[in-house]
């Protein structure tokens, strides 16, 4: 990859003696949808947290758009153009849908928006995520699917160049999965690079142009989906997790 948007160089992250990430190096191409898979406890979310600065890497470098962002505060990293969602959704429960989105617009952007631009952007995002009708509700009044959409809306509000999606598809019904996959593609079509963690193999394989496989905190494979699913190391890592390995072979 000649000029990746995001690059991890030998990332290490320790938690009280436990090594959650061990020398993970990877690259995410501009404009791509890249998937991260791996069994539970493989370090996927830890990798996200290392990128966003929530839990900065113990060693190694994170390079975003040719710039070293290792150790920057999360709010600064956000302004540089990385945005995220959470595995278990974390909208600001007491705030209205609009204000949830507004946070990203007001604080997450590098350049300040005028009031008019703000409103226009906000309603465009609400429309895009089909949240306009419930814009005045508080987040705690939303149903789970709406909360997921709200998380995505908030992530888009910061005007990111890269979004990290942590299991946005998990827990949805088959119809909802299809619509969410469409949404992710649409986001990508806006020129936003997507890095996503997912357990639903069909979705990952369907969406991603590239897949990274983590296991026990180490990267064991990276490549296009078809190639990765044939990788013996990957298969053995998933062994014992019948449904997942079944998903891999399918």
């Amino acid at each position, binding site marked *: 990859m000649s000029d990746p948007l995001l690059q991890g160089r030998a990332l290490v992250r320790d938690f009280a003696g436990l090594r959650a990430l061990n020398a993970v190096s990877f690259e995410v191409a501009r404009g791509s949808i890249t998937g991260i898979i791996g069994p539970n406890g493989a370090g996927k979310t830890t990798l996200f947290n290392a990128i966003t600065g929530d839990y900065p890497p113990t060693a190694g470098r994170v390079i975003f758009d040719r710039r070293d962002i290792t150790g920057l505060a999360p*709010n600064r990293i956000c*302004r540089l153009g990385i*945005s995220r969602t959470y595995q278990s959704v*974390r909208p600001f429960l007491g705030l209205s849908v609009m204000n949830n989105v507004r946070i990203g617009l007001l*604080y997450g*952007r590098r350049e300040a928006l005028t009031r008019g631009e703000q409103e226009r952007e906000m309603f465009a995002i609400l429309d895009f995520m089909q949240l306009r009708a419930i814009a005045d509700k508080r987040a705690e009044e939303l149903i789970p699917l709406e909360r997921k959409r709200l998380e995505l809306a908030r992530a888009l509000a910061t005007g990111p160049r890269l979004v990290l999606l942590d299991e946005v598809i998990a827990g949805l019904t088959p119809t909802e999965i299809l619509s969410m996959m469409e949404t992710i593609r649409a986001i990508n079509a806006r020129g936003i690079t997507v890095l996503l963690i997912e357990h639903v193999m069909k979705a990952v394989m369907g969406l991603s142009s590239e897949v990274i496989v983590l296991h026990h905190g180490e990267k064991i494979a990276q490549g296009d989906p078809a190639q990765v699913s044939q990788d013996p190391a990957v298969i053995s890592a998933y062994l014992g997790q019948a449904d997942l390995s079944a998903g891999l072979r399918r």
Partner: protein
Amino acid sequence: MKRTLPFVVPTALLLALPLLRIDARDYVLQVLTLLFLNIVLAQSYDMVGGTMGYINLGHIAFFGLGAYALGILYNAGVPFVPAVALAVLAVMAFAALISYPFFRLRGAYFALAAFGLVKLMEYVTINLNWLTGGSNGLKIDPANRTVPMYLVSLAVVVIVLLASWVISRSRLGLAMKSIREDEEVARDFGVPTRLVKTQALVVSSIFPAVMGAFYTWYINFIDPGQVFGLKIALTPVAMAMLGGSGLVIGPVVGAIVLYMAEEVIWTQFDELHGAMLGGVIVVVGLFMPGGLMRLRPLDALLGRLGWREDDR
């Protein structure tokens, strides 16, 4: 117009009150002055405690510091108005200074460290008796300042209410609320949390500092146990909770209700004033986590007045 009327009319009436020619005028003014003091403390406490979700049990430290700063400056010969300004600036600087270490703490740690700060301030004030007069207290020239104090407190109440309202609708206010809801997420979405917390604390320190400075001027004889007292530290918190912490209208309503309850208690009962106050506080904590103004009928009323906030 309709929305501001319920605010403007009482303010105008209260402003006209000193013109009243009845014997008990000054008594009424003093009752209201103490009420205003409570409103200011509760309302400004809630900027950090309610809007930002950091239970600042040390809010009263700003009041006591303002009271002492004014007394010391005034006795050193600084004219009154500059002395107030300097006292308030000193308190703001103090707030900015402590915000860094204190906001490294979260939840209970923050609440406790802030509470401990009040006690520390009390002791230090006692011990530095060359500066503060120590346990002998600090006295400034006495005078009857009932009417000016009343007007000043009323003005500060109006200002603090406006400030709360403006903040709750502002960029800063939104960031404060997001910190209350989930500080890590707020930071992930670009909110410079440390800066926002410092700003919030400094803003919230202005009002108790002003009231503290005027308190010394009004009572003219203060001592550390009084201005850094436990009761005065904790009642504003109870008031904010009673009315509805995190709502602009909450603390002011809570302050009025609790203060009036206290007035009734001490005039109507000879004994057990503290216990009754405690009972009220328990009931609030137990049954009204959202406070009065989140109760359905009152919430509906706010809706009709057009005062309901989006984020509650």
